[in-house]
C-alpha cells in the first residue's frame, strides 16, 4: 500500500478547510444521493520537508504533561500527520463520509526519536476497508521519515468506523463483541477535565472538529455534549507512562465510551517488568469513577 502512487502536496493541508469541505461534501451527497463507490483511493498523500513549530510544540507538551524536551512526542507526530490523513479521507473518491467517523483504535510504532528541528517527510493513505457489526471500518496509515530518508521513524495506524454505513460487497461480522466485564481497579491517577479540554487540545493539535469544541457545536452534530479528543486522552496516558519507555516503543490504544466534558477520569497504569527488572510494558486503562464505564485502554511497550 505504501508503495501506491504518492500524490505530493505542496504544503500541509489546512484542517479547517478540510472540515468545511467535508461538510459540503456530506451535504452534496445527501442531496444528490451519490456516493463514491466501494473502493479506497489507490494513492497516498505526501508532504515533504515538514517542520514543527516550537511554540506549538511547547504548548502541546505542557498541555499533555510531557516535559518540554526537543523530542517530538509520539502523540504530537500523530497531530502533525493528521491533516494529511484527513486530506485522504476528504478526496472525492473516498467512499465513506468523513464527518461523524468514530476513532476505534490507534497503533503507533516509534522506531527512533524525531527532533523538533528536523525536516520531515510525511505520507498518509487509507487501507484495509472492511466490515464492522455497526458499519464499515478502515485504517488510515501515516508514516514519518526524516527528509529524504527511507527509514520510517514513526508509523501510526488509526482505525475509524463509519457507523451505520454498509457498503455493497463488504461483509459485516454478525456477532457483537462480548462485553469484557470490566471492573475498575484502584486508580493510580485521577484527571479533572474541564469543559474547555477539547478547545485546549484543538488549539495545540489543530483538530477543530466541532464535536470537541463546545456543547453547541457538538449538539449540532448530534452529541449531547462535547467530548474529549481520543488522542488527547491517549497522549496523556503515554506521558503518564513516563521516561521508562525510552526512545523506541509501541503505543496502542482502544477507545470505548467517549468522555463527555467536563469529566473526572480515573486511570490505572501497571508496569510489566522482565526477569532482570527491565521495563517491558506499561498497560493502562481509564474509566469513569462516576459510572465505572471504561473509556479507553492500551499499552506502551518496549521495541527491544
Amino acid at each position: 500500500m505504501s508503495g501506491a502512487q504518492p500524490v505530493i502536496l505542496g504544503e500541509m493541508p489546512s484542517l479547517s478547510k478540510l472540515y468545511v469541505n467535508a461538510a459540503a461534501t456530506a451535504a452534496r451527497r445527501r442531496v444528490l444521493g451519490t456516493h463514491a463507490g466501494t473502493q479506497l483511493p489507490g494513492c497516498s498523500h505526501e508532504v515533504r520537508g515538514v517542520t514543527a513549530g516550537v511554540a506549538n510544540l511547547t504548548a502541546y507538551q505542557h498541555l499533555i504533561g510531557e516535559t518540554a524536551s526537543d523530542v517530538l512526542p509520539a502523540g504530537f507526530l500523530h497531530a502533525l500527520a493528521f491533516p494529511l490523513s484527513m486530506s485522504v479521507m476528504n478526496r472525492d473518491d473516498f467512499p465513506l463520509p468523513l464527518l461523524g467517523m468514530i476513532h476505534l483504535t490507534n497503533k503507533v510504532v516509534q522506531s527512533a526519536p524525531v527532533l523538533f528541528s528536523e525536516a520531515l517527510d510525511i505520507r498518509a493513505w487509507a487501507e484495509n476497508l472492511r466490515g464492522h457489526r455497526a458499519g464499515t471500518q478502515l485504517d488510515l496509515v501515516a508514516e514519518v521519515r526524516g527528509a529524504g530518508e527511507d527509514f520510517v521513524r514513526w508509523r501510526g495506524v488509526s482505525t475509524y468506523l463509519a457507523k451505520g454505513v454498509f457498503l455493497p460487497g463488504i461483509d459485516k461480522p454478525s456477532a457483537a463483541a462480548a462485553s469484557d466485564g470490566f471492573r475498575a481497579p484502584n486508580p493510580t491517577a485521577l484527571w479533572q477535565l474541564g469543559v474547555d479540554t477539547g478547545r485546549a487540545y484543538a488549539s495545540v493539535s489543530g483538530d477543530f472538529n466541532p464535536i470537541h469544541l463546545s456543547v453547541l457545536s457538538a449538539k449540532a452534530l448530534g452529541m449531547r455534549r462535547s467530548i474529549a479528543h481520543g488522542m488527547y486522552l491517549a497522549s496523556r496516558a503515554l506521558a503518564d507512562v513516563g521516561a521508562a519507555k525510552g526512545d523506541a516503543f509501541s503505543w496502542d490504544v482502544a477507545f470505548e465510551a467517549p468522555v463527555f466534558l467536563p469529566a473526572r477520569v480515573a486511570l490505572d497504569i501497571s508496569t510489566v517488568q522482565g526477569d532482570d527488572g527491565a521495563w517491558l510494558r506499561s498497560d493502562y486503562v481509564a474509566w469513569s469513577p462516576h459510572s465505572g464505564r471504561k473509556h479507553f485502554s492500551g499499552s506502551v511497550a518496549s521495541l527491544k
Partner: protein
Amino acid sequence: MPENGTSATGPKDTTARAAGSAAAPQLRKAVVVGGNRIPFARTGGAYTKSSNQDMLTAALDGLIARFGLQDERIGEVAAGAVLKHSRDFNLTREAVLGSALSAETPAYDLQQACATGLETVLGLANKIKLGQIDSAIAGGVDSASDAPIAVSEGLREILLDLNRAKTLPQRLQVLSRLRPKDLAPDAPNTGEPRTGLSMGEHQALTTAQWKITREAQDELAYNSHRNLAAAYDAGFFDELLTPYRGLSKDSNLRPDTTLEKLAGLKPVFGKNLGAEATMTAGNSTPLTDGASTVLLASEDWADAHDLPKLATVLDGEAAAVDFVHGKDGLLMAPAFAVPRLLARHGLGFEDIDFFEIHEAFAGTVLSTLAAWEDEEFCRTRLGLDGALGSVDRAKLNVNGSSLAAGHPFAATGGRIVASLAKMLHAKGQVDGRPARGLISICAAGGQGVVAILEAH
C-alpha cells in the same frame, strides 16, 4: 545487619563516620539546645491574617528570648515553607532581619515538602559536625490560611507577553487574548502533580492495601489527643512554646474527644476506591498554620553560652518510593529509610526508646508499622532476613503528634525534634547507654526523611 557501603571503613566510632568514606575525619557532635514554636492553629483560626514571615519571626523571637540570643550572630539559620509565595524567596533571611538576632546572621530557605523542617535540622547539624559553623537555628513554617494564590496560566502568559510587548499595538494585541476564564485564580491544592490524586486519596489506597481498620485509626487519633492533652497538663510544652495571637495551646487539640465521637465521623477520603472508606476528618490531620524553630550547636558553643545540651543529632536518612504507578504508597518512603538508618548504626527497634512517627494520617502510621511487621514486605522490598519488628505502642508518640497538634507542613519537623530532645534529656540513660529516639516523617512526592537523636 545487612551489608552496606560503610562496613569497609573499619572499626570507627559510628557516631562520627561519614558513610562511604574510608578517610572520614573525626566529626564533632551537633547538639539540640532547645526549641521554640508557636501553638499550631487550625486554618481560618487565630493566625488567619498572619503571614509565613510573621509566624516564623514570632517563633524565632521566642527562641531568641528563651536562650538569650539577642544580637547574637548565629552560624546559619535554615527554614522553609511548603506553601510559599514567590515574593518570599528569602523568607528565612527576611525573618532573621525582622528578629532580634544579629543582622549579620546568614540564612537560607529549604523546601522538601513535609520533611522540610527535619531536613533543615539534619543539614545544619551536618555543618556543625563538619566544623563549618558552631551554632544554627533550624525551622519551618506554613500557613494554609494565608496561602499564595496564583493567577491562571492564561492570564500569567498574557501578563508576561504584555511585559515583553514594546509598542501600543503590540500591547493591545496581547490584551485582546484575555478571556473571562483567564481571570479565575489558581489556588494551591494537595493533589500530587503526577497523579492528580490528593494526598488523602493516595493514603486511602495504602490504608486499604495494608488492611488498616477504622477502629485502629480512630484509636491512634484518640491516643494522640489524649497524650498531647496530658503533656500540656504536665507542663511539658512550657519550655517549648511561646503564645501567639491569643493562643497558648494547639487549637486542634480536643482533650475531651472520645472513641465514640471519632467513630461517629463520616469518611472523607477513599469513598470511590472500591474498598471500605475508613479515613475521616478525625483520623486525618487538618490544614494548620504555625511555625517552629530548633537551636543547634556544637558542644563547645553551648558550653561557652552556658546553654543546655539536650540531645545529639546522631544521623539521618532520606528515601523515596516509586508511587506514581502504585508500586508503593505515596507516604511509605519512611518504611524504607528507617531500616537503612538503623542498619548503618547496628540498631534494632529494641534499641529505640521513643518513636516519633509523624501522623499525616493515622493510616500512614499504621501502614508503616504494618509494613515493618510484614515478613514478605521486609524480605522482598527491604532486603531483610525477616520482619523488621513491631514498634512498642507504649513508646509511640507519647506526647501526642500531628493528629492532635495539627500539621503546618514545614513546621512539623521542628516541633518533633524539640519535643523529642526534651524527652531524651529527661530520660537520660537506658541500660547504660544514652536514651534514643527515632523520628520518621513522610512527605509529598513519595519522599521520607528519618533521623535518630540520642540523649546527651
